[in-house]
């Protein structure tokens, strides 16, 4: 391009920016739209009314202040785990262990939340107790992400398989504790859950009477922090370089092994924090039923958000809205909430294979492919 004149460059630059805009905004939007249409077809084929279903979904997600609050509640863990995956994807690694990291984070947070006052035989002030509880969860997730990272760096063991195996190990471990040593001892309790955490370890609701809590604010702050980390710090640069081209990174003097461990550790930390936030802000205890599947749903969120913090936050709100609307949809249209997973799978399909979307809507292909979704 050395021969290009300044005017040619700016024209080129403008065209390029337009292309980037199409790529970053319009293609994901069309993917979501196409996913919803495909979901409607499935609903129709299984003998229900898609219109009734989507009206219920919309009302349940946005129809009232309470619905909006529920949407925000659902979005909060999605933002954390989506950011966790964004870091790992930018580093060229697949952290598919979000579920296990989240469950361990929730477990450790719950343990700190209810055991600390018991162990110390005194009430711990909230300014110490709450941060400590959140840190415990984050640390548990960090550890559970770092081990597969270390195994990858040391032995080359594929993180795709190890992180998934670590999910099962963590979930069984949590199930053991919640059914045994950490089970809520109150005589009426029949469920696999811990006792409630102390008041001092809880995050307050944002508005009285609604479930949305300060965890949402923390999630948004975390998104800014991740944006800063990935875009403005040396570590972020190293992670992105290793992700783009491992050999080139090695050549540039980056210690790939260290970066791999750091990437998965950071990623695990955010997933663990998601669990801790759920415990301290929403449920006030750990209960095995609520974490399942977020780690995999977050894959779609992250790809939809194109691995960027802002995109992840927006995609997380979309998925949160679908989850929060799903129970109303099930109520009014008698359609099982599971249809949401089908719609999400279609969205993931169309985001990942954006060539399909471009083919359907006659959009020209970009000159460069994004990382991970491209060849």
């Amino acid at each position, binding site marked *: 391009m050395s021969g290009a004149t300044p005017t040619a460059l700016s024209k080129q630059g403008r065209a390029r920016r337009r292309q980037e805009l199409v790529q970053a905004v319009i293609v994901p939007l069309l993917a979501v739209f196409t996913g919803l249409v495909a979901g409607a077809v499935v609903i129709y084929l299984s003998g229900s009314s898609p219109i009734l279903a989507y009206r219920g979904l919309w009302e349940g997600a946005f129809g009232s202040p309470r619905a909006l609050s529920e949407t925000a509640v659902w979005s909060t863990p999605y933002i954390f785990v989506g950011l966790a995956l964004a870091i790992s994807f930018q580093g060229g690694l697949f952290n598919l262990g979000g579920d296990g990291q989240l469950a361990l984070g929730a477990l450790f947070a719950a343990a700190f939340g209810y055991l600390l006052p018991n162990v110390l035989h005194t009430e711990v002030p909230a300014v110490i107790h709450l941060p400590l509880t959140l840190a415990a969860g984050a640390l548990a997730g960090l550890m559970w992400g770092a081990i597969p990272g270390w195994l990858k760096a040391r032995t080359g063991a594929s993180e795709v398989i190890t992180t998934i195996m670590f999910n099962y190990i963590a979930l069984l471990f949590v199930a*053991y504790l919640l059914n045994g040593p950490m089970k809520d001892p109150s005589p009426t309790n029949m469920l696999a859950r811990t006792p409630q955490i102390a008041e001092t370890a809880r995050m307050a609701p944002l508005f009285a009477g609604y479930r949305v809590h300060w965890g949402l604010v923390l999630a948004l702050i975390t998104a800014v922090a991740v944006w800063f980390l990935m875009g403005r710090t040396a570590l972020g640069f190293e992670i992105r370089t290793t992700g783009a081209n491992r050999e080139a990174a090695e050549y540039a003097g980056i210690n790939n092994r260290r970066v791999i461990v750091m990437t998965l550790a950071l990623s695990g930390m955010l997933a663990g924090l998601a669990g801790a936030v759920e415990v301290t802000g929403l449920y006030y205890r750990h209960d095995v039923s609520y974490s399942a599947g977020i780690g995999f749903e977050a894959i779609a969120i992250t790809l939809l958000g194109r691995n960027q913090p802002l995109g992840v936050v927006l995609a997380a709100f979309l998925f949160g809205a679908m989850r929060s609307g799903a129970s109303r949809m099930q109520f009014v249209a008698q359609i099982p909430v599971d249809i949401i997973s089908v719609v999400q799978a279609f969205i993931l399909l169309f985001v990942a294979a954006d060539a399909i979307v471009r083919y359907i809507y006659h959009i020209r292909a970009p000159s460069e492919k994004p990382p991970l979704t491209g060849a």
Partner: protein
Amino acid sequence: MKTTPKSAPRRRRQSANRANMMRYATVAGLIAFLMGITVLVGGGSDPAGIIVASFLATMLAVSTPLALGALCGIFCERAGVINIAIEGLMLAAAFFGFAGATFAKAAGLPNLPSLLAGVLVAIVVSVLFSLLHAALSVSFKINQVISGTVINIMAIGLTGYLHQVIVFRGLRLPSAGVLPTIRIPFLADLPVFGVLFRQQPIAISALILVAVTHFVLFHTKWGQHTIAVGEHPRAADTVGISVKRMRYANVLIGGAIAGLAGAYFTLESVPSFQPMLVNGRGFIALAAVIFGGWMPVGAWVATLLFGAAQALQINLQYYSSSLPESLSFLRTSQFVGMLPYILTVLAITGIMGRSTPPAADGQPYEG
């Protein structure tokens, strides 16, 4: 050093053989160890011979879906396509196969034809999902791990949704039962170890398919072409092998085998469908592929180890009353239940022997 063109591959083969032998010995030792625990725990209630025989029979039965899943992985990866969708393929096949058998039964067919119809549906559905994987990863050239994840999430969503639809509508459907046990003549009548030779059809076909896959890969032109496409697609293309066609075909063959694995869950093991019934076994099968060095027999041996871990869990549950108080935590299913997953992690870290994947594994071919 004199290296004639002939001796280098032979030397490589010899060292590969030695590594394989080491790996087999490790696996045999571990299986013996797990079996030993079972005999120690159950020895008070049953004679050791019976326990060993039933342990081995359980091991063979529960390793069936793993072995078939591993064969699916081998066909795909030997052709250069990573398939982490085995989990989803099995789940979809398990659901639709079960639905197929149930509806066939409801339509008035007797049990066995219904079940066979179910197996056929399972295979067809799995092949269709594999076609999607092949299209995404071979034609659209999107990242193969993502393509596999798409199918996994799709399978979880679709089967969970349709399962709930059936539950919601309160449909009462007749059960076709499970596939009948086949008694291998003479051997099935052996006194203690006869139980090993009384197996169900999918378990038996898994063993046959291991041998068939070995033969196809290493003794036929098809296998040569498959391996060529997975190792050096450019060279294969140059000599006139269609990379695209071979990859599509092998992914679909793998899909058919994964469909059979899915059928095992609902048509051979238990006559019911649970949304999470595959429970990571698709991924364990992939680990078996890696551990077995992308060889059918090697992968099968690895699946026996995972089968043994599961057999231990089943046996400990059975004998839980004879566990000493100091080991009472083993009475809960969770700790022993972790064993297959921990073994999987160990297996792919290379602690028990390393192996090299096909050179072009996971790389789309820009033809």
